[in-house]
């Protein structure tokens, strides 16, 4: 991936997950709302996509374009450990199997997501103690995408 982007990779992946039916738009008040960059305190079951540090590749010799993989983290929160883990695994497998050259439209911009590569398995990050005791799971990945229009 390289070039200018109107939206952050986390924003694009969030929209992609909604398009794939793995969660819902928070405005629709459905199950498993997917947020970007911040998680509101309610509901218990929520998914948030964050931007993290990516991987740098080499530069293309002819035009100097740098090949990059942007880092993302998908954080899954749920009151129940079993449900949270099951949802996390579902998301992880969906990233592996269904994301390939997907087009994502956000407002006026169109992106082509070439692939999302997990950098590891689902991480069980523990409970939010001593406050609400909700469980946190994370999936870290790098994404290769490009803005096509």
């Amino acid at each position, binding site marked *: 991936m390289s070039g200018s982007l109107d939206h952050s990779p986390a924003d694009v992946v969030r929209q992609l997950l909604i398009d794939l039916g793995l969660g819902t738009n928070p405005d629709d008040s459905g199950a498993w709302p997917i947020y970007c960059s911040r998680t509101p305190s309610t509901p218990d079951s929520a998914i948030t996509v964050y931007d993290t540090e990516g*991987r740098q590749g080499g530069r293309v010799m002819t035009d100097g374009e740098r090949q990059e993989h942007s880092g993302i*983290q998908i954080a899954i929160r749920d009151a129940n450990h079993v449900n949270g883990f099951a949802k996390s695994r579902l998301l992880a497998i969906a990233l592996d199997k269904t994301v390939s050259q997907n087009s994502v439209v956000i407002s006026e911009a169109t992106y082509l997501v070439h692939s999302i590569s997990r950098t590891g398995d689902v*991480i069980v990050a*523990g409970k939010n103690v001593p406050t609400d005791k909700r469980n946190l799971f994370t999936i870290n990945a790098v994404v290769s995408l490009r803005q096509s229009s």
Partner: protein
Amino acid sequence: MEIKNLNRLRRKLEHLAKSRLESPNAIGGESVIVGYTANYAAYVHENLEGRPNPPRSDAQRKAMFASIRENEEKGHTGWQVGESKFLEKAARRLDNNGTLSGVITKAMLRGTKLQQALYLAGLRIQRASQKLVPVDTGNLRASAFTRKE
């Protein structure tokens, strides 16, 4: 196309590999682990939203500020430093800028065994990570380790 003396070349490469490994049977199995043993390390590492437990009541808030004042009197300013992804960021930065491959290459050229070279790279990651890790009591930072596997 014909490749001559392929077996000789294979034997040469095997001999070279064995001379750089701790154990002759360790091909593909030598590695080094860098991590933190504190049981809340994963939660802090994966939580991208700053302080994970914001005070929920006036009593909690008072207790938190009392704790901060107490630590301030000791000259402690730990809550001002640190960030999430403290291990992953350190490893990726050193990988992206070629430091890790430089450390390993330099050590191997000196005739060091592969695992020792990896260990030196691991220690470099640990050092970079301990500069990023959030410090409150210092327990998390002190729990960093690098070990040969």
